[in-house]
């Protein structure tokens, strides 16, 4: 193993661990508080943030770690959600079958999209993923058997036997948090594994990694597929949360929002994506409450986040925390 990009220094690793645990503890605390105060709406809002956080986390693997700026990830979210919706429409609501099927479908979609798109770089990659995203969007629109543009109501959520009922919103919330945490731990492990190091080294200097004999393309494809599969899982949760799927889930605005969450939180940090998703969802809620013209506030906010500095919110915390 000759390539050793950016060794992690001990204090930096500790600061990261502290911040990450703070993020997850705060989320758990919010869930407990919302539940304790008997605020089902907030419990649901938090669950929505958890689901989008999972998608943002998955996207961070592609964008922040592998350097693949995808503007088509909403397609994988949609594939996961549509598998749940379509199978429920046909009376197949067994979660043990539905969920693996949905994740496998999203992974296959990511394999095809990634396999083709990875022939390009830079802005071409952004645009070709957007193009594939749009194709999936129009495909969903043309599914007139499944509601077409009107979308499809899911009359029965995924069934997991008697001991786990997703209709109980508390269960759904905590299940989402557990899945998010598991995905986070998995991706963190991945990030510091040999696989992750190759990805990050290739992001910084592709030519060198290729010269060292790494099949960079194959590493990236695997990362893209994992990212797509996890995004599909987020789609599964979203479908179960909203009891509804529609082509709007696949729109390019949604892909853009996921990217915004990742950058808002701090690119490539993983826990930043989670933080970004929560801030995004809660901010949207607060601004929409202030005025129907919330975009007037949200637009400049996005600009300021970009201008204020690199590293997003996590970067900001680190700079305040440890001025060096």
């Amino acid at each position, binding site marked *: 193993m000759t390539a050793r990009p950016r060794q992690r220094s001990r204090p930096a690793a500790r600061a990261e661990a502290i911040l990450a645990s703070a993020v997850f503890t705060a989320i758990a605390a*919010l869930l407990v508080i919302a539940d304790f105060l008997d605020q089902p709406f907030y419990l649901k809002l938090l669950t929505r943030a958890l689901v989008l956080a999972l998608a943002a986390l998955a996207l961070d693997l592609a964008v922040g770690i592998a350097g693949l700026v995808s503007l088509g990830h909403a397609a994988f979210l949609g594939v996961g959600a549509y598998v749940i919706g379509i199978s429920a429409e046909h009376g197949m609501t067994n979660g043990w079958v539905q969920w693996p099927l949905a994740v496998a479908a999203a992974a296959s979609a990511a394999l095809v999209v990634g396999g083709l798109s990875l022939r390009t770089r830079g802005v071409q990659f952004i645009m070709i993923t957007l193009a594939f995203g749009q194709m999936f969007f129009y495909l969903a629109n043309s599914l007139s058997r499944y509601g077409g543009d009107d979308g499809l109501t899911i009359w029965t959520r995924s069934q997991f036997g008697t001991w786990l009922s997703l209709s109980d919103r508390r269960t759904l919330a905590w299940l989402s948090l557990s899945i998010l945490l598991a995905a986070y731990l998995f991706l963190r492990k991945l990030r510091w594994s040999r696989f992750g190091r190759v990805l990050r080294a290739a992001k910084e200097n592709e030519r060198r990694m290729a010269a060292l004999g790494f099949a960079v393309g194959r590493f990236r494809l695997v990362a893209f597929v994992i990212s797509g599969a996890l995004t599909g899982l987020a789609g599964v949760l979203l479908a179960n949360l909203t009891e509804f799927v529609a082509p709007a889930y696949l729109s390019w605005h949604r892909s853009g929002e996921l990217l915004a969450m990742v950058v808002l939180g701090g690119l490539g940090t993983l826990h930043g994506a989670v933080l970004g998703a929560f801030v995004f969802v809660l901010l949207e809620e607060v601004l929409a409450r202030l005025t129907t013209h919330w975009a007037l506030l949200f637009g400049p906010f996005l600009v300021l986040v970009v201008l204020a500095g690199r590293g997003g919110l996590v970067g900001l915390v680190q700079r305040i925390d440890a001025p060096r």
Partner: protein
Amino acid sequence: MRLGIAIAAAMVLWAGSAPAQELRVGFMATFTGPGANLGQHLRDGFLLGLDHVGGRLGGLETKLTIVDDQLKPDVARQEVDKLLEKEKVHFVVGIVFSNVLMAIYKPTIESGAFLISANAGPSPVAGAQCSERFFSTSWQNDQTHSALGKYAQDKGYRRVFLLAPNYQAGKDGLNGFKRYYRGTIVDEVYTQLGAVDFSAEIAKIQAAKPEAVYAFMPGGPGIALLKQYAQAGLTKQIPLLSAFTIDDTSLPALGDAADGLVSASQWAADFDNPANARFVADFRKKYGYVPSYFAAQAYDAAQLIDAAVRSTGGRLDDKTALRDALRNARFASVKGKWRLNTNHIPINDFYYVSPGKLADGTPAMVKGDLVFADYGDEYAKDCPMKW
């Protein structure tokens, strides 16, 4: 963690509890994006209805919460949860678009609140999935299309060219047209959703030489289509019938391009009845523009709630009594009459409408001949409700 506590504190502040004997209404419509114009019409109509009862629907203190669905089904779902679980509303009213209605339908009717659509009327909720908790003050989507199919049939057009956006409501719309039209369909063209350039379609129309064109093209694309159709010089050669394309929301942007177009509606601003005269005059005074059928339907929604709650004596907890009161509500609808079908969707008279002028010369859609009298929708027979 400190952030968590701060947010939790904010939650407590937001979660105010409601006093007794208060009527809570959640109004949902589209206020951002391409459909925002329609949401504004819908809201203004409802607010005027509220005004006319002194801000007290059914004589009760009324708390109105207005939310924006952004024309995104998942946002709509989230917003309706807010209305049902946080505001604990008794009624959810509004809804411009069918896909939004479908997204909120299940949670709303299962929650104990009543859902009153002031516009959208997709076929599932009119048929097999109809509900005791769902009422409409508008129509079933197909009805306007069917009325225009009947109009084309009556006019004796033998060859008609059909045009609609490529989405579910577009396909349903053209099927609705075909229900009463017996002539030849020259071609059936579906355009990309949101597309605003219709040069290719217009060239096809010119080549096909139909006797009439039927188009369903709501919103901005509809305005673009009508402009381009007029520019190609076709308006005078081939009559253009349309649904949800030329109406009081698009008329101001069209100007002369609207001349000679035909649509159908169950209401127009020049309907001659006292309730409508008061509605149109007060609406124009308050908001400065001519109301559309969106505004009229929302105004009727306010009247329906008012009449029903009044007849129960303000008792909101007895859902069965409230349901019966909504079914049998009597009020002066701006349409001149009010009757619900078994599936809780109004039975309407449909007239053909075309651009014209109101008494004071303001451009508006005006009423023409009657197409259908007492027209109930075709899906009502699939609805198991009996009353």
